[in-house]
């Protein structure tokens, strides 16, 4: 089989032959690096879908290299909307700033006893490995690079829904601008997530919380201003 990888030094797609046997994309990349081209650059760590470093795009779809079985004619590219550092290695320090801007952490701790049910409630959200697959899949970034984005909003929701959080309001306040209302609810993030997390639904939940806190949908307000009920339909 042959796979093609987008290289950064010449911005060309280079083809690499591989022996026909089942292997993960990560194994294929390490094999290529070890035997064909030592300059091929990518990030990896755990090989077990938990460190979140190895996400790339395969045929236009986000995948963890360690969890994807490579196929003949696959085209491998780096994640979208990230600065490419080299080949498949991207700069994730900027995307991590979305966590900072949305203050996706426990604001004020309060003592609360958690039942197994409570724990289950945010279990999925806290499975996030910060692989950035959802970020790369989100179409909003094509028009608004300041969008807080799926993983940061999922994480903000995770804390806002925790009984030990005494200050949900601050969390909700901090996800208004470039946040919950900028999402177009397309669910690309949900489809891309290797951990089965559903940022779209979490964003909808954050919208409900926002409304509870007195916020309204700004896009809705804008639209209704321009709407003339007497215009001749």
């Amino acid at each position, binding site marked *: 089989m042959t796979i093609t990888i987008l290289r950064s030094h010449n911005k060309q797609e280079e083809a690499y032959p591989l022996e026909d046997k089942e292997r993960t994309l990560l194994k294929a990349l390490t094999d290529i*690096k070890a035997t064909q081209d030592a300059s091929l650059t990518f990030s990896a760590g755990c090989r077990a879908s938990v460190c979140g470093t190895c996400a790339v795009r395969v045929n236009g779809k986000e995948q963890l290299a360690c969890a994807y079985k490579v196929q003949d004619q696959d085209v491998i590219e780096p994640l979208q909307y990230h600065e490419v550092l080299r080949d498949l290695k991207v700069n994730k320090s900027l995307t991590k700033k979305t966590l900072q801007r949305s203050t996706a952490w*426990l604001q004020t701790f309060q003592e609360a006893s958690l039942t197994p049910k409570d*724990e289950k409630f945010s279990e999925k959200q806290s499975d996030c490995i910060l692989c950035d697959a959802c970020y790369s899949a989100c179409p909003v970034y094509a028009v608004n690079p300041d969008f807080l984005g799926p993983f940061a909003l999922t994480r903000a929701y995770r804390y806002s829904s925790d009984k030990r959080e005494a200050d949900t309001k601050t969390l909700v306040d901090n996800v208004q601008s470039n946040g919950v209302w900028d999402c177009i609810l397309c669910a690309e993030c949900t489809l891309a997530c290797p951990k089965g997390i559903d940022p779209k639904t979490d964003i909808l939940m954050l919208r409900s919380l926002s409304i509870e806190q007195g916020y309204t949908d700004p896009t809705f307000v804008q639209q209704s201003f321009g709407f003339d009920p007497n215009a001749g339909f």
Partner: protein
Amino acid sequence: MPKRACYAQDYTGLKILHTLYDSCLKAEIDFLDDHYLLNLIVDEGCIKGAIFLDSHTGEIIQINAKAVVLATGGYGGIYHGYTTNSYGSTGDGIAVVLRAGGAVSDLEFVQFHPTALKRSSILMSESARGEGGYLVNSEGERFIDELKPRDEVARAIFRQEQEGKEVFLDVRHLGEEKLMHLLPQEVALCKLHEHIDPAKALIPIKPVAHYSMGGIEVNSSLEVQGIQGCFAVGECANAKVHGANRLGGNSLLEITSLGRFAGDHAHQYTRSASNKEANSTQRDKDQKAIEAIYAQACTLNFYEKQQALGKLMYEKVGIQRENTQLLQAMEEVRAMQEMKEQMGIADKSPIHNQNLIEYLEFSSALLLAPMIISSALARNESRGAHYKIGFEKQDDKHFAKHHIIQWKREI
């Protein structure tokens, strides 16, 4: 009695790590991503800072500090291809301490986890057995009490393999619902890497290197022996909390409790540390060393040797040891060390040079491997994870002691 320690599905470490990360962001702590630790700066036995390779630029960076805390993880990665650890767990921090004149200890104690996936060495956690999973051989027989300590279970599996039998983990009787509740990630990993659904089929497993009990020799304040003001914590350190045989769950307990402790002690140390700044001697030395690696001809592929080293260590310095095999292993490792002159890096790019980082990691592995072997050779007894043919009993009279290795620091 509770069956398991505190846990979050089969994702306990991940959840601790991410909660810590979120708290660090909240506290506005700076991270220097892609900075690879090369060496410590030590002056008259006191820590002065550390030298890093900044992958973004290829520059060698000096960071001066009154105290340093090392938390660089274990050396299970030396068993390349036969470990649950990530690629980079080659004991860099331990090698760095040795080069800086500090002490390391008990390197022969490498824990083998009984149940890793056969083909990929990916971990199937203890909880699978804790919850009632069985181990069976290819004849369908159970051959060991699954709840015995890891070393005993790993050896029992190893013996089955020596008899030509395959070994499987059987969790079918737990049922799909329970499996998805307790081990969702591992079910997914089995499906992906072994093509089997654990609710319906046996999981093929083998024991592989999992945890380093040995490491940087520290005192009760976690200060490194031989380097004042330098602290070490976590898997890279030998805080002696796990003895010769760590119990499942205790590593996360160690890092969460002792991590804070190391931080407190490092902070305390800074109050009385001298203000004398470091000079650039170490930086210049490391700069030259990296330049030399770039200049070195590359006629031998170190990736091949990395795999060969992993296999050698697994086969001859593994679950069951024997002095003649250890001696052979030592010879082979020494030969590899000599061949190192022919191994260079093929990628000459100054920036984001993963080839260089992997070369440096392999260098750490090659530095530590003979010390694991010599410590294993010196311990003519069996204790915890260290099991030696011909010396199957624990011998407290001669060996109730630690093996400490420390080099004289060249000036």
